[in-house]
């Protein structure tokens, strides 16, 4: 941030920005009511309850108005959005609904307020829930509801809940075969946070843990390997469908709701939805039980749930607290349990009898499950630790690596992340700084001499007026490009030499030399991403050139209707890549290809070929149309076959056009992002993750700007290196003519 420009300039620009967006103002400009903004779930029963409760709150507090800010329902996406909001210094939303695993991160970054001064009654809540909302001794969020993973089972297919995981598998297999049900057990096994909660339950059931009491990572233990082996066998043995590797909560719920599964692991929210006879085929034919244990472990539910926190920049913290106090009061908790199936975070309610007719299980049983629920590690870097674990879990479940080695890699990665975050940041010495200054100077010098050469290449007979007018006319474009492309690129290079972590503003931005590049060079994920990028580029460009040439030759021969065909061939090129990716993703949704580490490339490559071959063909067609027909007449006179004409006349003359297509397609392919982001998300594991996606996730998901910038520089170097090679090739092709 330092060196971003003069202060006055910044203030002026910010003022212009405020005018441009027309924001601010409505809180103080004449409006007597304080307007609070709350970000939370706005969909389904949860959203309906919230809306009712907010209306009641506004009736009780006429001076306050509450507006719900929509945010994605998927937890990982909502997390990313919150981080972007808070990190950007936004004053709203005032109140944020948090997942239980985010509180420590947001608190450590100083983005949410400590609630101590409002006097929260600590005795009113489950201790584990409160513990997850504390950071360095202070409470940062008030519990809204708790979640605990549960086992749903079909009472019409099995007559009792399984007592152990082995019995669960046996019963699932037996009932699946006897009643011709598609799936034995459905779970959430996409590469996202839900997979960690499922694994945590199986892990505890086998006597393992993610971290020990002191926060040390122990996920590479022997019980952990057995737990992951159990899950992997369930997938490979057909008890858990392979498709579940792409499933989140709602996918599993829909399968169970359609009567396609004997068992389901899910959160309590599914219960009221499954009991809705209008939409559910299993209403009245299922029950819930605690997740069972395996030998050597204990039955366990993963602890989840939602809490409310106050944005540290909110202009109305006291009003925000009034809202939180209202929404977390017992009356609202009971209503939420009744309408949305969300469990209250206050143990007293379970003992009071108020929940007797509301919960699907006897409150005493629910109490026992929640009191024994397993929390996830409470740490500001939880999100990044979890991502490392998710990747390896997903790799093991999709058969890319055995459970033991997968967990060993996960543990290594997690320890390294923890060390990066807690250890003293490495600072490069002055010698190293001097070396970088020299390299930078050398680079500038080289660029300057090259530029000077271009400068001296003075065109003949330059008029002074042309000189002046020329620069006057290009000045705006040059200024814009310098300001938003050239200068930022230098900034990226500079940033990549720093350990800049936006989650830890207190840490500053220490200079670390090439440490981030060294870390990448030591990371298997980086080399895999590089390989994926190249593989994708080679495969798609080869296919697109070959098919594009064929298509161009075909179009060249087609006389009638060429206009219509041309319009049609332009369509795939013109539609958004996001749309093309979604179409192909859906086409392959039920095949299981998208969660197979090898076959997932099929839809990706097909989608790219479908989208860009027509474009390549049009460029080649233009080249073909430039070829003199008399050359073919001459060749035919000499008795050349069609094939000989192609090889000896068409291809040599088409070489410049072919090279242009090659250049454009390769440069596009090495920076591929949209397609993979939408179609596979880089999965399964990271089996299809290209380097742009890795860079994006590191930048805006993990907020590690130093490392992410280093990754971006690699993408840049790749594209730039290829461009240089191609420029040489093109010049060569030009000279031959």
């Amino acid at each position, binding site marked *: 941030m330092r060196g971003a420009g003069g202060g006055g300039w910044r203030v002026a620009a910010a003022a212009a920005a405020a005018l441009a967006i027309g924001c601010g103002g409505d809180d103080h400009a004449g409006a007597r009511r304080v307007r609070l903004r709350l970000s939370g779930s706005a969909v389904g029963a949860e959203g309906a309850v919230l809306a009712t409760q907010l209306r009641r709150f506004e009736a009780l507090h006429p001076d306050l108005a509450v507006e719900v800010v929509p945010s994605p329902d998927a937890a990982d996406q909502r997390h990313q959005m919150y981080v972007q909001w808070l990190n950007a210094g936004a004053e709203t939303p005032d109140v944020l609904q948090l997942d239980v695993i985010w509180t420590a991160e947001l608190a450590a970054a100083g983005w949410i307020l400590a609630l101590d001064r409002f006097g929260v009654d600590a005795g009113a809540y489950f201790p584990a829930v409160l513990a997850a909302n504390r950071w360095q001794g202070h409470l940062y969020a008030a519990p809204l509801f708790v979640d605990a993973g549960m086992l749903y089972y079909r009472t019409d297919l099995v007559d009792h809940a399984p007592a152990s995981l082995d019995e669960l598998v046996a019963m699932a297999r037996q009932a699946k075969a006897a009643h011709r049900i598609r799936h034995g057990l459905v779970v959430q096994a996409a590469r996202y946070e839900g997979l960690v909660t499922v694994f945590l339950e199986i892990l505890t059931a086998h006597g393992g843990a993610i971290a020990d009491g002191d926060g040390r990572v122990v996920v590479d233990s022997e019980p952990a390997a057995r737990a992951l082996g159990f899950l992997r066998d369930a997938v490979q043995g057909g008890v858990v469908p392979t498709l579940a590797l792409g499933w989140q909560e709602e996918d599993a719920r829909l399968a169970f709701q359609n009567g396609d599964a004997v068992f389901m692991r899910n959160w309590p929210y599914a219960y009221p939805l499954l009991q809705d006879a209008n939409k559910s085929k299993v209403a009245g034919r299922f029950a819930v039980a605690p997740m069972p244990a395996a030998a050597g472990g204990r039955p366990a539910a993963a602890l989840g749930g939602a809490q409310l926190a106050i944005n540290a920049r909110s202009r109305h913290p006291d009003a925000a607290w009034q809202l939180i106090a209202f929404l977390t009061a017992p009356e609202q908790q009971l209503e939420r349990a009744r309408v949305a199936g969300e469990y209250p975070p206050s143990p007293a309610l379970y003992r009071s009898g108020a929940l007797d007719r509301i919960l699907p299980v006897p409150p005493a049983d629910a109490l026992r499950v929640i009191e024994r629920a397993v929390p996830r590690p409470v740490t500001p870097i939880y999100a990044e630790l979890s991502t490392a674990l998710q990747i390896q879990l997903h790799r093991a479940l999709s058969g890319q690596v055995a459970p033991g080695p997968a967990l060993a890699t996960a543990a290594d990665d997690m320890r390294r992340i923890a060390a990066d975050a807690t250890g003293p940041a490495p600072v490069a010495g002055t010698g190293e700084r001097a070396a970088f200054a020299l390299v930078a100077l050398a680079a500038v010098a080289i660029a300057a001499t090259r530029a000077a050469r271009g400068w001296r290449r003075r065109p003949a007979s330059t008029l002074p007026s042309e000189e002046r007018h020329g620069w006057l006319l290009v000045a705006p*474009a040059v200024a814009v490009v310098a300001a938003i492309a050239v200068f930022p690129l230098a900034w990226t290079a500079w940033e990549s030499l720093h350990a800049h972590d936006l989650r830890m503003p207190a840490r500053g931005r220490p200079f670390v030399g090439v440490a981030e590049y060294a870390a990448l060079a030591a990371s298997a994920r980086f080399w895999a991403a590089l390989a994926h990028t190249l593989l994708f580029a080679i495969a798609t460009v080869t296919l697109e050139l070959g098919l594009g040439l064929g298509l161009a030759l075909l179009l060249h021969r087609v006389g009638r209707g060429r206009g219509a065909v041309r319009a049609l061939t332009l369509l795939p090129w013109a539609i958004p890549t996001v749309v093309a990716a979604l179409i192909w993703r859906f086409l392959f949704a039920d095949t299981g290809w998208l969660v197979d580490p090898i076959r997932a490339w099929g839809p990706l490559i097909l989608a790219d070929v479908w989208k860009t071959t027509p*474009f390549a063909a*049009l460029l080649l067609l233009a080249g073909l149309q430039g070829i003199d027909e008399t050359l073919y007449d001459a060749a035919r006179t000499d008795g050349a076959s069609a094939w000989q004409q192609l090889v000896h006349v068409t291809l040599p003359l088409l070489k410049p056009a072919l090279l242009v297509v090659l250049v454009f397609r390769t440069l596009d392919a090495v920076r591929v992002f949209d397609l993979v982001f939408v179609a596979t998300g880089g999965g399964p594991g990271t089996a299809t993750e290209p380097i742009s996606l890795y860079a994006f996730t590191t930048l805006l998901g993990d907020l590690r700007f130093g490392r992410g910038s280093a990754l971006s520089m690699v993408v840049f170097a790749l594209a730039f290196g290829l461009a240089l090679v191609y420029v040489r090739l093109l010049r060569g092709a030009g000279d031959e003519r």
Partner: protein
Amino acid sequence: MKRAGATLVVAAIALPLVWALLSSLSPEARLARPTAFVPGALTAEHYRALFAERDFWTPIRNSLVVAATTTALCVTIGALAAYALARLRFRGRDLVLGAMLAVGMFPQVALVSPLFLLLRALGLLNTYPGLVLPYFTFALPVTVWLLVSYFRQLPPDVEEAALVDGASRLRVLREIVLPMAMPGVATSAVLTFIYCWNELLLALSFTTGPERATVPVAVALFRSEHQVPWGQIFAATVVSTVPVVALVLAFQRRIVAGLTAGSIR
């Protein structure tokens, strides 16, 4: 043989699109079996839900504002620069042309971190200017290159005659060159608009909420909300495709000419 090949190609290109259109009109129950291709009862329900239950107008408005603003500014700035680069002889001309080409080849992700920090410092994250400015990075080079090649195709005689008659350079540009170049300007505007309309990475990075999300962002983040509402997703894909399809059908000849001119030289 030729006919069969052409039919096959047309089918391969068109079928996924037709199928997306049909899916957007099929009841949710039939979408649960994605292999079912045969159209049955059609419904507009997904389109209703897209605009009534989910505010899809907002991303459409955002995309229109951002794409139109970027296009207007880029074509204006780009046309001035392109004319100078095509017609005037001045020191550093090749340098500027080369720099424009190089910037056009930048991978966008290489600019995300500094632009994010810059926009954050200026308070421009999640605003229209905060999208338009980054969009210049890819839109301006494309515009300049297309227009340079277009200007070079124009006959210089009229301009030279006017210059000899004593008209100023700027007047010649305004009154003679630009009217003649309108088709080229329109083509580059159409192409720039399409590129902006389809852009995902920068929009994903610099918007932080639904109020400024563009169509590709809304469509890309659609999928994991709630229960994979495929019907609505396909309705959204059809809606987001309509503007570019309309542009392609209206300008197809020019687009092809523009693309080839811009790249072959």
